[in-house]
């Protein structure tokens, strides 16, 4: 590693010595990534084709048993459907609620811009478990909203805001909003005040400036944010599990359940593969949409 600092930048015909150094540089990181990323994906695929009655490593015959469970059991249809609905709802609301904040941060000339940006993404610094807990406190049966409504005598009974998919959706929206804001902020590069001024000079009022300039220019950022939130939402399980109180069934919670409670690892693996397929198709769709936007 000693000679690394001065190694020539653009030589493909590296000497044997520097090839040895290169190998030493690459080895530790690559080994770590292979063990923690590449192997897991391969093992996952293999395990999803083993029999659920055997250990996932018992060798044995390959079977598509887990996949037929995932694909033909109506329960898993519902789980997949729930997952998609949760993903779409969370993505749409998180994006709609984040958009004004991102727009504000991108356009403000306030001295406090840095602080406000930090404040908007600061929640990323807190564990999602902690923020889920915050929402349990807010939406719980004896939580902030219910006790406030009761003390104002708006309702006498408890409004069920947790232990259902509503609670899970609300909490996920808030938990994923910082990601949406960050994605939008980095996607808003083409927005600038002069374009808005130019449009105004050409006769566009506030509304027209928004629909004809700001919105189209920010659309790629919005799309990226939506994708990111959707993908994070459909693969989440901590928040749906805690906010749903075991009554919300999505792919994430089922994967966790099969992996750690039922210990049906082949099924957990098949469900994960299912999630991965869903995930990849969404990314493909996103790339299509982005290309359509560019054209």
């Amino acid at each position, binding site marked *: 590693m000693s000679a690394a600092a001065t190694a020539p930048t653009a030589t493909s015909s590296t000497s044997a010595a520097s090839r040895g150094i290169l190998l030493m540089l690459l080895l530790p990181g690559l080994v770590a990534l292979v063990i923690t990323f590449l192997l897991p994906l391969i093992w996952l695929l293999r395990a999803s084709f083993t029999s659920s009655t055997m250990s996932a490593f018992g060798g044995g015959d390959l079977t598509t048993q887990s996949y037929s469970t995932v694909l033909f059991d109506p329960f898993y249809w519902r789980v997949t459907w729930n997952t998609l609905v949760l993903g779409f709802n969370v993505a749409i609301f998180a994006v709609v609620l984040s958009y004004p904040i991102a727009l504000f941060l991108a356009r403000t000339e306030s001295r406090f811009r840095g602080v406000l940006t930090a404040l908007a993404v600061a929640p990323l610094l807190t564990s999602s478990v902690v923020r889920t807990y915050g929402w349990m406190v807010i939406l719980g049966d004896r939580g902030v909203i219910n006790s406030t409504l009761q003390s104002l005598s708006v309702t006498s009974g408890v409004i069920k805001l947790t232990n259902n998919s509503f609670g899970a959706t609300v909490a996920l929206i808030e938990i994923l909003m910082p990601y949406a804001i960050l994605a939008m902020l980095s996607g808003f590069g083409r927005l600038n005040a002069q374009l808005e001024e130019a449009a105004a000079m050409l006769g*566009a009022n506030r509304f027209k400036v928004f629909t004809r300039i700001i919105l189209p220019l920010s659309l790629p950022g919005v799309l990226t944010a939506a994708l990111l939130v959707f993908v994070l939402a459909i693969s989440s399980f901590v928040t749906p599990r805690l906010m749903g109180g075991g009554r919300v069934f999505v792919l994430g919670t089922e994967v966790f359940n099969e992996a750690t409670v039922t210990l049906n690892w082949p099924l957990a693996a098949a469900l994960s593969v299912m999630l991965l397929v869903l995930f990849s198709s969404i990314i493909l769709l996103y790339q299509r949409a982005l290309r359509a936007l560019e054209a």
Partner: protein
Amino acid sequence: MADHHVIIDNLVKTYPGAQKPSVDHVSFSLPRGEMLALLGPSGCGKTTILRMIAGLIAPTSGAIRLDGEDVSSIAVYKRNMGMVFQAYALFPHMTIARNISFGLEMRKVGRAEREERVRKALDLVKLTGLGDRKVSQLSGGQQQRAAIARSLVIEPELLLLDEPLSNLDAKLRDEMRDEIRDIQARTGVTAIFVTHDQDEALSMADRLAVMSAGRLEQIGTPREIFDRPQTEFVASFIGAGTVFEGKVTEHGLAMVEDLKELRFVGDAPLGSPVKLMIRPHRLRLLTDAGQPNRFSGTVEHIVYRGQTLTLNVRCGSRLLQADLPTHAGMLPERGSTVTLSVAPEDVTLVGQVSP
């Protein structure tokens, strides 16, 4: 003046939190079809004036009149002015044609007419056939033309240009200078452009308004500004020159330190302290005796510049710069003593010295 197309009346702008006004009681006016240059060093308030005229920011006080009518309360998008921004501000998500037709769409101009006018605008700026290009597919100069077309196609009351040439390289800049001047003349649009480059202002504008630190110093034709600067600032900002302080002893004669007597053309009361300026290229090597305004000195430094020879001549405690034509026969050498003279009409009164 009162019937001028555009009248700027005592315009003041103090930005929130600023101690001093960025634009301080500025007044000027333009007849229809004139091109006026707002010239001054960076930070003197040129852009601020332009943005107030455009309606992008509100004046602290003062009025902006178009054909006698105060437009200060009219929203920016209803003012019908064109603006060419320094970085062009073309909409990156639209083709060039869509950029140009944007203003027409906002005015609900019908499709057929829009296409026709966009085509004509493209022709006007020599971008014929490039309407379908994306913004990124045009060169800097072409983007500049597109931006001009976009602001002219709406047939604006007034065209505003903020440092329109500063983003171009030197060669293109000369080309676009003539081009912009030509387009403005052909369309007959009243135009104000901002620049900090004196050459640009002198060569493009019908008249120049020279600004310094938020105040208007002088307004006039290029010739008036160059030959008859009224303040020391204008004199030193535009072209080179040596300024002397002195005291008026007779009509048109001042006693000046280092040069003794200096004859000038201009009115200044007897006994008053004055500042007088001499441009280097107005100095002559003395040939025949008996001329006024003669000074002798030692040549300290010579720079040969091809067309001219620049001499630094020490007269008393001052260094006097003189630009002499190189075809003037015998040229002086370093260390030699020369006698220079200047015609009284080339000695400009640039201000009174405040005692």
